[in-house]
């Protein structure tokens, strides 16, 4: 069972957890990304996330499907935020449930690692003296 959402409103970690909770689950592992106040020693004012929604939803679903095939997990919920995010806000939540905990840890880490490689979402860091699209340039 897979729940994929891209939202321009604050994410609910509880909603992701409630989705993956199941009577057969002994473990839930959640990854929650949060906006840091600095990156590489530089103060961040805010982040802006932009998505290509139709494709991002498809790519996120592929990741969740692969996680279910590769690991022995029950349910996956992946929510990603778009728009302006202040320090401490949550750009991404990934929740995974499984009978046993090792699979949930592996699958959750696989989902966030792969999301960062393949899902068409872009992050702009806004500093006091400028802004930069993350990872765009060498």
């Amino acid at each position, binding site marked *: 069972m897979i729940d994929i959402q891209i939202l321009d409103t604050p994410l609910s970690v509880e909603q992701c957890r409630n989705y993956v909770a199941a009577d057969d689950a002994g473990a839930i592992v959640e990854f929650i990304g949060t906006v840091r106040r600095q990156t590489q020693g530089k103060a961040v004012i805010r982040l802006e996330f932009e998505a290509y929604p139709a494709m991002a939803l*498809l790519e996120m679903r592929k990741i969740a499907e692969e996680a279910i095939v590769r690991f022995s997990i029950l349910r996956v919920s992946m929510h990603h935020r778009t728009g302006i995010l202040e320090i401490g806000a949550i750009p991404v939540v990934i929740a995974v449930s499984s009978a046993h905990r090792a699979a949930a840890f592996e699958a959750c880490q696989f989902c966030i690692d792969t*999301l*960062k490689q*393949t899902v*068409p*979402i872009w992050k702009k860091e806004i500093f006091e003296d400028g802004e930069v*699209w993350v990872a765009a340039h060498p």
Partner: protein
Amino acid sequence: MKIRVLTFGIVRDITNTGNLWVELPAGSNSADLQTLLQEQFPALKRLNSLRIAVNAEYVTPDTLLRDSDEIALIPPVSGG
């Protein structure tokens, strides 16, 4: 054929539009589009990567394009 190319993130900044219209010969593929755009916008060559998506899927350079496709330029992603 005239195709519309969706742009995002730094590619939208470079091209200064979210919808780029491009004239290509019929039978052009993904690599042809990329070459044309990199000539028109040399700043695209300086990106870490630039992939093309057709109908919301990454495609290989030899993928043929049709003017009915939804085509997008995908600069390096940085979600999460």
